[in-house]
């Protein structure tokens, strides 16, 4: 059974069903369709989640090979439809399918117009995100990777805030510009595979391409081209400026997906392409990446502290946390790589949760100004407790999932360059500064604003959203092996493979 294809395309099928049903319904039935659209979307995404859980339980953690492999002939000339997951990608599938149903629940109340189209966009988005993590063919990967822009562009542009069009454009063009350079590099790789293996064996199979021995001079250029795309997606300092705009303007669920999954595509790409395919160039550029990461961690933490808008603050903190990820990846040892993957998954949960938390009070007060709030612990004790947990996870307090990723990446980086680890540790202190600042200003202090009187605590549906996030944050913080056991074999294999390639030259 092609389970990966089913998981990937099930949301797309549901999206088409929704469009079809709405087309076939007469005007008087449209209201009913609008009402039922979120339910259809929710059931679909839950089914996908169940299938993904099944997949993870059946996943064999003792091998680094790609599992659940599917292959169909597709475009000819070595370009085939290839899907498969290994220890690195399988958990990202789970992260995506875990967050999407929560986003849909959160959207039911906060989205006021065109519910049907919104749900369609979200379902399509889920298909594309899952496709990125499943794709084992370079062209297929690129298609999913790029196509993610389309629904996100629409989601920001139609359901976003006041300055949505600007943000949507900036998001789209920034990422597109990065990606076309990657496309050029992919063309080169395709051509190169033909030159090495013979023209009739030219392929875009990621596994075959990983085994090729690419000359060092070419590696440098290819690495840069891929990096242009992934660095924008991550986003790394200094190409991060699209992120705060996109986050601030996107609707809550859009921000959650953006922070939770889309930012991980960049890191995933680095692990899947840059490191194994261009090892020499990766070594060559590692110092550059380190310094960019440290600058990102320290600089964006400082910027985050001075933000007046809650979402912007969290957006900048995301850039800082992604700095840990790049640092861990380019430490190029098992600890760093494990830490980077853990940090991505943990950040997906924690930053997603923080955006949900902001969405909760935004839905009530329709502002994200930090100075507007203050002292809401009086009215929303439960909310304050939940927010506290996620703030702490964001800071990286031991016992939460945020700690594990940061400490592992720092251990990894320390082995390579202690100064980098030192800079990152300094950034952790700064993260406590801005996160606690946000928490104090919003939750504690005097009630400065009369409008806050009578603000309601978490509703039932909000508890449903928060509960799994709270549980995951704590469980992963206490028992990280849940993740590291699954990723271990693949990561060790990746690093071993990397070392032999480096040693061989």
């Amino acid at each position, binding site marked *: 059974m092609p389970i990966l294809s089913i998981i990937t395309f099930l949301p797309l099928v549901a999206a088409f069903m929704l*469009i079809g049903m*709405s*087309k076939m319904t007469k005007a008087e039935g449209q209201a009913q369709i609008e009402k039922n659209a979120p339910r259809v979307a929710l059931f679909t995404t839950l089914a996908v989640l169940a299938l993904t859980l099944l997949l993870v339980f059946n996943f064999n953690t003792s091998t680094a090979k790609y599992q659940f492999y599917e292959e*169909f*002939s*597709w*475009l*000819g*000339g070595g370009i085939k*439809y290839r899907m498969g997951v290994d220890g690195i990608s399988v958990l990202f599938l789970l992260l995506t399918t875990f967050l999407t149903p929560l986003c849909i629940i959160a959207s039911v109340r906060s989205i006021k117009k065109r519910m049907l*189209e919104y749900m369609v966009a979200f379902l399509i988005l889920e298909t*594309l995100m899952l496709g990125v993590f499943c794709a084992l063919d370079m*062209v297929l990967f*690129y*298609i*999913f*990777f*790029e*196509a993610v*822009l*389309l629904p996100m*562009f*629409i989601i920001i*542009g*139609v359901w976003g805030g006041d300055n*949505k*069009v600007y943000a*949507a*454009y900036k998001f*789209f*063009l920034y990422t*597109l*510009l990065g990606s*076309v*350079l990657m*496309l*050029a590099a992919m*063309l*080169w790789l*395709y*051509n190169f595979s*033909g030159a090495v293996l013979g023209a009739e064996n030219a392929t875009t199979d990621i596994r075959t391409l990983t085994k090729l021995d690419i000359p060092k001079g070419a590696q440098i250029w290819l690495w840069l081209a891929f990096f242009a795309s992934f660095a924008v997606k991550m986003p790394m300092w200094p190409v991060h400026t699209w992120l705060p705009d996109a986050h601030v303007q996107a609707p809550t669920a859009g921000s959650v997906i953006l922070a939770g999954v889309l930012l991980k595509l960049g890191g995933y790409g680095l692990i899947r392409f840059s490191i194994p395919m261009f090892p020499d160039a990766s070594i060559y550029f590692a110092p550059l990446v380190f310094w960019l990461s440290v600058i990102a961690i320290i600089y964006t933490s400082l910027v985050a502290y001075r933000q007046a808008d809650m979402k912007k603050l969290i957006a900048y903190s995301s850039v800082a946390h992604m700095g840990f990820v790049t640092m861990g990846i380019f430490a190029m040892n098992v600890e760093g790589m494990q830490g980077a993957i853990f940090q991505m998954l943990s950040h997906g949960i924690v930053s997603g949760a923080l955006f949900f938390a902001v969405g909760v009070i935004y839905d009530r007060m329709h502002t994200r100004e930090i100075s507007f709030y203050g002292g809401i612990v009086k009215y929303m004790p439960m909310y304050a407790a939940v927010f506290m947990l996620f703030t702490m996870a964001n800071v990286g307090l031991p016992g939460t999932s945020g700690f594990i990723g940061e400490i592992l990446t720092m251990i990894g980086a320390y082995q390579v360059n202690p100064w980098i680890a030192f800079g990152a540790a300094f950034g952790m202190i700064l993260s406590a500064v801005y996160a606690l600042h946000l928490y104090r200003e919003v939750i504690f202090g005097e009630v400065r604003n009369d409008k806050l009187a009578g603000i309601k605590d978490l509703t039932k549906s909000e508890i449903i959203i928060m509960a799994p996030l709270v549980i995951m944050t704590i469980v992963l913080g206490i028992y990280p092996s849940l993740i590291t056991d699954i990723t271990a074999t693949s990561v060790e294999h990746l690093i071993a493979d990397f070392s032999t390639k480096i040693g061989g030259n």
Partner: protein
Amino acid sequence: MGQFSYFAGEVVLGLSALALLLVGAFGGKNSVSFVRYGSIIALIIFSFTGFVLNQKGTAFGGAFIADDFSRYVKALIGLSAAAGLWASRRYFKLANIDKFEYSILMLFAVLGMGIMVSAGNLLSVYIGIEMQSLALYVMAAFNRNSSRASEAGLKYFVLGALSSGMLLYGISLIYGFTGTLDFGVIADQLRQGQHIHTGIIAGLVFLLSGLAFKISAAPFHMWTPDVYEGAPTPVTGFFAGAPKLAALALITRVVTGPFGNVPEVWRQVIIVLAVLSLIVGAFGALTQTNIKRLMAYSSIANMGYALVALAAGGAAGVTGMLIFMSIYLVTIVGIFACILQMRTRDGAVEKISDLGGLSQSNTGLSIIFSALMFSVAGIPFFMGFFGKWFAFAPAYNSGLVWLVVFALLASVIGAFYYLRIIKTIWFDDKVHDFVTPSRSLAFLSLTSALLLFPILLLPFVAVPARKLIETAATSLF
């Protein structure tokens, strides 16, 4: 059958044009529909004769070539012309210029294109081009009560005559220095490594300039925006599709046939044309407010992409060009079917801002329009991306890396103005309620959007289609 089967399609087209002309002349107003549907049938027969008869060879002493390449290109041309004719009915009726001559002109234009695509001799090149162009000039000015349309027709005619002059001058130079008009004989004279007389190179440059005018490649693009804007919309849609493919096919024939042995001579010309077209197409479109003008610049840019593939040379380059152009033609038919649906109670509108908030009044059209725009912008998941992929891959393989990177960057700029249309449709406030479109338009736009949605990517369609195009391309070598 003998030689006749090689050009049977053209004969069918010519005879039915003459017969339908008589029907129209005697039947008057009542026969307009009959002539139109008759022409559509003739075009469809024309499209498939090459495949049905399956005859390959040359006729008229080498002046007319029937091969896999010509029959594939002719099929595309015929079908897109038929689609254009079918879509035009309502527009002409509402503009009060629903005359039978339009269908006849279309048939003659396609006949000219058929000759261009099959040309095996510099004279048949010229005959084909003139036959096509004269019909197109009249079509541009078909709405003769509109001063804009007349201006468009006149402009097209004057500049077209200039380009024909250049073309003829080039032909005469080549004839003068080689002593022959036949493609095969010229090819024999121009062997690799041999010294090539400067006169021949000058002739080739003139010849290519004249042809570049027909595909509106920069710097010979000046007429395009004005003609596209002024001509009736169905005519514009036709201009953007079939004639471009025919002229590109002719360029392909010239550079692979008589000049096939000396790629270094023509390649630089093609590269210059490609680069300039990409620049003009990308930047010219940024400030346009009229959607037809925008499409003019878009077609300039797209010709740039096709030329990038052609510059790669060899069967791979031609394959890339054909794949790109096939996808481009489908897109163009769809886009113009959408533009023709931009009609309020007060008549057709063609400003981009008129699309504002379309998603609120007509979701179906909005989705189709957006899909077409994403596709022509080359965003993955739509066929447009694969068009670019297959156009750029051979150029990349032949070492034109900088050109590909340049084209990719140009496509990012291009994405900006296609996105602007999508932005207007989805994000802006509602401006108009469009009237219900005719069934043919709805069908055409939906079909082409569905074709561009990755349906074609299913292996049982993609692999045979690719094989078909590859055979077509290899038949040139």
